[in-house]
């Protein structure tokens, strides 16, 4: 589904990604771990198409297409979803309107008729129940005045509405208390199918107690320095990132 080859990217003239190689197939969950500043969020944002980053080299193939050639909105409509680390507030825009526009853009891209207001509300209700979300969030403006936990739950809710093929969750576990973490993790698990894939970008191992990854990659200094199975996460938790840093710096 996704093949990243020797991807290099910079922000404000500083090279952050220094040659990333990664292959993600349908049905897989990949965890990308690493210390602060290793390039995890940059990777997530580059895949989603944020314009602050300059691509220096390499290629990214998504479903046979050159992903880097696509505009951010076309990437989204093609099934790439980013759960933001810091979801922004859009004052005065009701969540319902925002999501309806979003869902209908996705439908239009697939050649489907837009959902009517009634159909949309029905779909929304079903997804809320599935995620055990409190129904009040969707009546508020996009992320406005949401707590940290509410923002993250709202990201997963949008993911449920859009049913992406490739979901990239950027530090979705940060700032969550244990109950919120469980709700978010259950949501991610519930949305998992044999046809979609998930990339979890995380600093800590604890999310991986709830969402079991098939692969764990350690990102350090702009490169993937170690890959393994789920046990790698536990090893990291035990030994800390210094273990990787020391190994990699030598």
């Amino acid at each position: 589904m996704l093949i990243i080859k020797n991807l290099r990217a910079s922000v404000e003239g500083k090279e952050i990604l220094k040659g990333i190689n990664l292959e993600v197939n349908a049905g897989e969950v990949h965890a990308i771990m690493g210390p602060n500043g290793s390039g995890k969020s940059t990777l997530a944002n580059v895949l989603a198409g944020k314009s602050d980053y300059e691509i220096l080299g390499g290629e990214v193939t998504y479903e046979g297409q050159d992903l880097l050639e696509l505009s951010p909105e076309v990437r989204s409509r093609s099934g790439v979803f980013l759960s933001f680390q810091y979801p922004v507030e859009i004052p005065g825009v009701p969540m319902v309107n925002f999501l309806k526009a979003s869902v209908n853009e996705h439908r239009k891209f697939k050649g489907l008729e837009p959902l009517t207001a009634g159909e949309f509300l029905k779909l929304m209700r079903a997804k809320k129940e599935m995620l055990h979300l409190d129904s009040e969030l969707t009546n508020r403006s996009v992320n406005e005045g949401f707590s940290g936990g509410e923002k993250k739950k709202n990201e997963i809710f949008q993911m449920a509405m859009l049913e992406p093929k490739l979901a990239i969750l950027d530090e979705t576990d940060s700032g969550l208390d244990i109950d919120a973490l469980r709700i978010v993790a259950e949501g991610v698990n519930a949305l998992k199918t044999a046809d979609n894939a998930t990339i979890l970008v995380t600093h800590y191992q604890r999310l991986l107690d709830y969402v079991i990854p098939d692969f764990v990659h350690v990102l350090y200094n702009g490169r993937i320095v170690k890959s393994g199975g789920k046990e790698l996460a536990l090893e990291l938790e035990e030994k800390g990132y210094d273990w990787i840093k020391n190994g990699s710096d030598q």
Partner: protein
Amino acid sequence: MENQDKLLNDITTQEYQYGFVTDIDTDVIPKGLSEDVIRVISAKKNEPEFMLEFRLKAYRGWLKMESPKWAHLRIPPIDFQETIYYAAPRNQAKYQSLDEVDPELVETFKKLGIPIEEQKHLAGVAVDVVMDSVSVTTTFKKVLAEKGIIFCSFSDALLEHPELVRKYLGMSVPPTDNFFAALNSAVFSDGSFCYIPKGVRCPMELSTYFRINTAGTGQFERTLIIAEDDSYVSYLEGCTAPMRDENQLHAAVVEIIAMDRAEVKYSTVQNWYPGDKNGVGGIYNFVTKRGICKGESSKISWTQVETGSAITWKYPSCVLIGDNSVGEFNSVALTNHHQQADTGTKMIHIGKNTKSTITSKGISAGKSDNSYRGLVKVLPGATNARNYSQCDSLLLGSTCGAHTFPYIEVGNKSSIVEHEATTSKIGEDQIFYCNQRGISTEDAIGMIVNGYAREVLNKLPMEFAVEAQKLLAISLEGSVG
């Protein structure tokens, strides 16, 4: 003062030096402005004599005035002698079919979702089938008549209810109030008249759209609304469809008078042709709007969405005379490309316990300039007056300007006046967030801007609000690269 009174007296009582009608071909009035031209206009409309006197008084005052220079606007010199001040109402259609109309205009109609028949009507295309709106209008008139509400063109009001016009005309905006109001008072062609009797709640939104005999919106439009004790009316002006007009200069006047416990809601969507992307063409819009809360506990609220015109100069105001009266001003002013807007309000607190609220949302894009100018004045007698103002500016890009000019004059210690202001830019992060959910940048900006203006849009009547939302998005098309 004595001199002024004498002059006024002389003017209103003297015999007309030049006789009543001059020897001008009745169908063709030469361009330019003179007392003769004004007499001809008045005669053509069969106006009562007090109306002609009003016009002449305004004209003589206007001659001594100068175009105001204090606004933050670059106004090209206007040659007032190059304008034709009276043209017979256009009955003839300009086009035979929509195919002849500017395709860009038709495209905008489609985006706004305006029905075909209405599109034709707005663009000046001949309509051979009887439009539905005719029967709607008839039903509408019947309901109003049963309630004793008068809603007609200004010309009709002058013929059918001259005593009412005479009593109230110029009460809010005197004939020589300011340069543009004086010009309007001298030469206005037509407009709307609305009278709500005591204790009557007007059961529907009054819209100029439904007014019979409307020959397009005039260059110098005059509106007079009177709400008697315990009455209520909601009035809609303008429409969201782009309005083109061969006259570049527009100077309208709106007067409102609210008696004891009466409430008037006045909503405007202004979408005159703003000129092209390079700032060529476009309407100059100089408007004087003022409401007097004459009665106790009366209320006047102005809600406006301004997206059109090359130049906008407009300050809908409230004079709060009655004790416990309330004034409100809610505004969204959007400028793009080379548009310039200097708009705001004046709230004059005279009575006790008077309250006013100002919510202004400016949006600037392109190379445009957008200013809020507002005066809150509390007179010594206005014990416990209260004002709250909020003025926000939103910038798109870095080549546009946003300015705020608040004036506060407080003459009573017991009053409370608050002013808050913010300036923000649309965040790249907000746009990217929308993009990441599949929403294009253009749609994202429309959405963010509408969110920003929502507080004001919510004050508009429902259908108007929906159209205004689309209008804001369309007006910003092409503003992001």
